[in-house]
Every structure is written in structure tokens, then in C-alpha cells.
């Protein structure tokens, strides 16, 4: 029993090594064999071989070399098998596929026991893989699924859990994506320097939405065994390492680190979400904040145009991280940043956040008026309830919270919090002297 447990633990440690090394190997193998599916199959077979052997024999001294050599051998095996199956007429073409042009123009043979590729070659290949997965001719959800598959090495079942869909749908999506990459010839290359500003937003959007998917599963429990936030941060680190001079990847990494810094305070011991005003800031990760702020400054220095959405969101997170308590927040600065954010990237979420910030500057009436212009949503009801309570309009606040609870998903992360607020407002409404429910009228006193 205990022996089995240790084997399991070793298995998990080995699986993680393989998964992360697998991305590097896959990136190079796709270029050498010129086929995403074939390369994935080969890496998968090599990973299975390692998973079978390593937990028992121990991890070899050079796991990367072991996996690379094994994956290359498996690729050659697969090509031979397919050649035998497809018959003679394809043999010539497949043999040619064994050699591919190197980025420097030289021809490279797929030598299974050849030396490991130098780091700069692997880094180029990783960039190729990233830009191919996030190619603009693929739909945004497909980009995210492909990134989870090829860049994070997750299984279709794990991806389905992260993206709240089914394994069958995920597998179909991945198959269609690989078909399109092959049939339409989506090139396996890094965009030229002058194309990067056009191509990077798609890559950054994939990484950001991965983090969001892990950070706030909007429906359903976070039932998957992978830390998607950690995966997103790993990709953001990778992209920043590969393109250190580009401001957008730097801003994305900054934003993710600043958000991640608050993670320990974001959920209480019961697993309920703790809103920003109630978070224990001593639990915020200061080292992540320091690094996030430094990266933000670096990104802003490097960009010579208007701040982009990632820089602005990071700036908002940094502004919150800078002050010791919620009450010490410089809400005017937060409002200003949201104004800029809405200019470059309008969204109901940002509009709602701006309204909250405006209310926090003391302009509750103005905030309530602004809410009317924002599309209905569960979050809008919740915010409206909070603002009405600020004006001691508790019965109305209870109605709004009821509406927020009724329109949110059963497993909404803030459900328990909102239910508590509703009960609190109910109690305050009951304590209020008659008339318990005043008509809506401007309040005499200012807020």
C-alpha cells in the first residue's frame, strides 16, 4: 500500500517533468517532421515509455536527452508504419519528410541519436509553436485548446475540464485544428519583427484567457487536477523570456503575477471567494508584487504608444497592491485608469469595475446612474445592491441581491458571499424605522 503510494508520487513528479520537457521536444520535432499530429504522437509515445520506465528505474541523468532521442525514434517508427500502410507511392514523399530545412538554410537529417539541439534552436522552435497555436486563422477557442494541448501538454480530458466542455468536443476541435494547420499550410515560423505587433495580441489573449479560466471558473467547480494559473504563468514567463524586448508579453506577465499575488487572500478557509475590500493584504505575495511592478515599468518604458489593455489592467492591479488597505486606495487614480482601459478595450466587466471605483470616490448617486447604461448581468445586480445599501436603501438592496443570486450560475464563486450580503441587508432593512421602503428619491444628505 505505502509502496504503491510512493510509486504514485514518483509517477506524478515524473509526469510533470515529461509534460514540461515534452513541449520543448514537440516544438523541434514539428519542424523536423513537418507535421503536428505525427510529432505529437511521437512525443506521446516517448512520454508513455518514460512513464512506464522512470518511476521504477528512476529518472535518467539526462531526461531531456532521453526523451528527445526516444521521441525521434518513435517518429521514425510512425513514419515507417505509415509508409508500409500507405503503400509504395507515398514512400518517396515520406522519406523526404525525414529531412527538413533548418532555419539557417542547411538540411537537417532526422538522426535519432544526434546531438541535442542547442538552446537557441529550441527557443526558436518554441516561438514557432506558440505562434502557430495562436495563429489568427484559427478561432480564439481553438487557439486556447491548442495551447493547452501542445504548449502545456494537457490531455483532451483535462482541457475539457478547464474549458468547461466535453472531451469529445475538445478532441474534435483539436483534430480539426491540426487538419487546418496541415491542409491550409499554416506556416511553422516566427513572424517577422514588423509583424509582431499584429501577431502578439492573439498570443497574449490566449495566455490571459488561460489564466482567467483557472482563476475564476465562472460555472462549475474547479474540479481539474491541473493548476491552469500556474500553466498560464509558465507560458507568460516563456513568452517574455523568448521576446524580452516586446512590451505586450512583459505586460501580460506583470498582470498575471500581480493577480497571482492576491491569490492566497482570495479564498477563505471555507473555500468562499473573499472580495477585494475584505482581503487580508498581509497574505498578498510581496515578491510577486515587486516583480510584477518592475515588469510593468519595464513594459511601459519599452512601448512608445498609448498604453494597451494589459498594461492598464496591470497598472490597476499595481495601484491596489501599492496601498496598505482598501480604504487607503487612490480611487481617483483607479477611475482614471479604467477610463483609459475603456478607451482601448471596452467591456461590461471594465465598465462595472469603473462604476465601483466611482462609488468609492464618494459619488454613489453618479455610480447608480451609470449602472443604468450597462447591460443586465448578475454582477450588475450585486453591485447595484451594494450601492443601494450605501444609501441605506436596504429593501431595494435585498431585491437586487435576490436578482443577482437568481441570475448567477449555481456554482458561482461569489454565491456564498452574495447570500451573506443579502441576509445582512435584510436584517438592516428590518431594523430600519418605518417607512421601511422609501420611494426612490434623491437623498437629502450627500454621500
Amino acid at each position, binding site marked *: 500500500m505505502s509502496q504503491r503510494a510512493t510509486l504514485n508520487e514518483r509517477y506524478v513528479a515524473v509526469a510533470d517533468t515529461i509534460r514540461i520537457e515534452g513541449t520543448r521536444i514537440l516544438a523541434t520535432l514539428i519542424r523536423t517532421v513537418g507535421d503536428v499530429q505525427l510529432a505529437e504522437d511521437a512525443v506521446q509515445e516517448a512520454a508513455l515509455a518514460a512513464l512506464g520506465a522512470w518511476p521504477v528505474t528512476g529518472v535518467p541523468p539526462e531526461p531531456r536527452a532521453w526523451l528527445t532521442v526516444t521521441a525521434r525514434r518513435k517518429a521514425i517508427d510512425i513514419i515507417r508504419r505509415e509508409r508500409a500502410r500507405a503503400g509504395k*507511392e*507515398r514512400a518517396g*514523399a515520406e522519406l523526404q519528410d525525414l529531412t527538413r530545412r533548418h532555419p539557417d538554410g542547411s538540411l537537417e537529417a532526422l538522426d535519432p541519436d544526434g546531438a541535442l539541439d542547442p538552446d537557441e534552436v529550441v527557443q526558436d522552435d518554441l516561438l514557432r509553436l506558440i505562434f502557430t497555436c495562436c495563429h489568427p*486563422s484559427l478561432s480564439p477557442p481553438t487557439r486556447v485548446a491548442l495551447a493547452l494541448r501542445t504548449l502545456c501538454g494537457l490531455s483532451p480530458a483535462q482541457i475539457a475540464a478547464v474549458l468547461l466542455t466535453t472531451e469529445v468536443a475538445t478532441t474534435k476541435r483539436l483534430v480539426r485544428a491540426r487538419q487546418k494547420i496541415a*491542409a*491550409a*499550410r*499554416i*506556416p511553422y515560423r516566427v513572424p517577422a519583427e514588423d509583424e509582431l505587433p499584429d501577431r502578439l495580441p492573439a498570443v497574449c489573449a490566449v495566455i490571459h484567457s488561460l489564466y482567467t479560466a483557472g482563476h475564476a471558473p465562472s460555472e462549475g467547480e474547479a474540479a481539474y487536477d491541473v493548476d491552469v494559473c500556474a500553466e498560464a504563468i509558465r507560458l507568460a514567463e516563456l513568452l517574455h523570456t523568448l521576446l524580452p524586448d516586446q512590451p505586450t508579453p512583459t505586460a501580460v506577465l506583470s498582470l498575471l503575477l500581480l493577480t497571482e499575488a492576491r491569490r492566497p487572500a482570495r479564498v477563505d478557509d471555507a473555500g468562499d471567494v473573499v472580495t477585494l475590500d475584505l482581503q487580508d493584504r498581509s497574505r498578498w505575495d510581496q515578491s510577486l508584487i515587486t516583480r510584477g511592478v518592475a515588469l510593468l515599468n519595464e513594459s511601459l518604458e519599452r512601448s512608445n504608444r498609448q498604453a494597451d489593455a494589459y498594461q492598464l489592467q496591470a497598472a490597476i492591479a499595481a495601484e491596489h497592491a501599492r496601498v496598505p488597505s482598501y480604504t487607503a486606495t487612490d480611487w481617483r487614480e483607479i477611475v482614471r485608469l479604467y477610463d483609459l482601459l475603456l478607451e482601448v478595450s471596452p467591456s461590461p466587466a471594465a465598465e462595472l469595475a469603473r462604476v465601483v471605483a466611482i462609488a468609492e470616490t464618494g459619488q454613489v448617486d453618479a455610480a447608480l446612474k451609470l449602472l443604468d447604461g450597462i447591460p443586465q448581468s448578475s454582477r450588475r445586480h450585486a453591485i447595484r445592491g451594494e450601492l443601494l445599501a450605501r444609501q441605506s436603501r436596504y429593501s431595494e438592496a435585498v431585491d437586487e441581491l435576490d436578482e443577482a443570486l437568481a441570475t448567477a450560475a449555481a456554482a458561482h464563486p461569489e454565491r456564498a458571499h452574495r447570500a451573506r450580503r443579502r441576509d445582512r441587508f435584510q436584517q438592516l432593512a428590518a431594523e430600519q424605522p418605518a417607512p421601511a421602503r422609501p420611494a426612490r428619491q434623491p437623498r437629502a444628505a450627500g454621500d
Partner: protein
Amino acid sequence: MAQYLALTYTADVDWWAPEQAEELAEYRKFGVEYAEQVKASAVLHPTATATVVRVEGARGGPVITTDGPYAETKEALTGYYLIEADDLEAAVKIAAEIPAAWGGAVEVRPVIVAR
């Protein structure tokens, strides 16, 4: 080299009509500029001239023809270009020069080439 069919979707107009002459000239300009990459092309009569053909059951069955199009849509298939390009990005660059790309849309589809 790969081949792509660039299908143009635009307003369902009669390209022979005098008022289309100016726009048609824009398409001709594209054709001349990319003569090397464009392997074939056609401009189609409006969808009102279309006939949809179906054979009932199997081959040899009754031929059913219906008047096209099925439904009034804002954009209709109005022509195509067969483009030769290295890869999808190269094909998209060329397709973006077809006037339909800003007057409507261009659908780029890879062509199956027998190995």
C-alpha cells in the same frame, strides 16, 4: 507551392451593368497585378441566374432543378480566383488585395492536390 481558391462574397450585383464598370476595373487591376499567382478566375452572373441541380435517389435518377438562390442574403458568391502561394499567410496577403475583401469578404480555401 499550394493552391488556394479565393471565393469572393459581395453584394449580389450584375457585373455587366454599366454602374459596376468602375468596380470591375478594380478587380481587373488586381488580376493584372497578381497575374503570376492567379491561375484561374471568374466573375459570376447574379444569383438570380442560378439553377440548383439535384438527382433524386442515385445516379441516373430524376433530375430536379430549382431556381436559385435559396434565400436572399446580403452577400453572395460572386466570383473566384485560384491562387498559388507558399502557405496560408502568403495566400491571405494576396486575398487581402482582392477588392471584395473590403467590399464584402473573401473566403480562402486550400485546394486538395493529388500527391
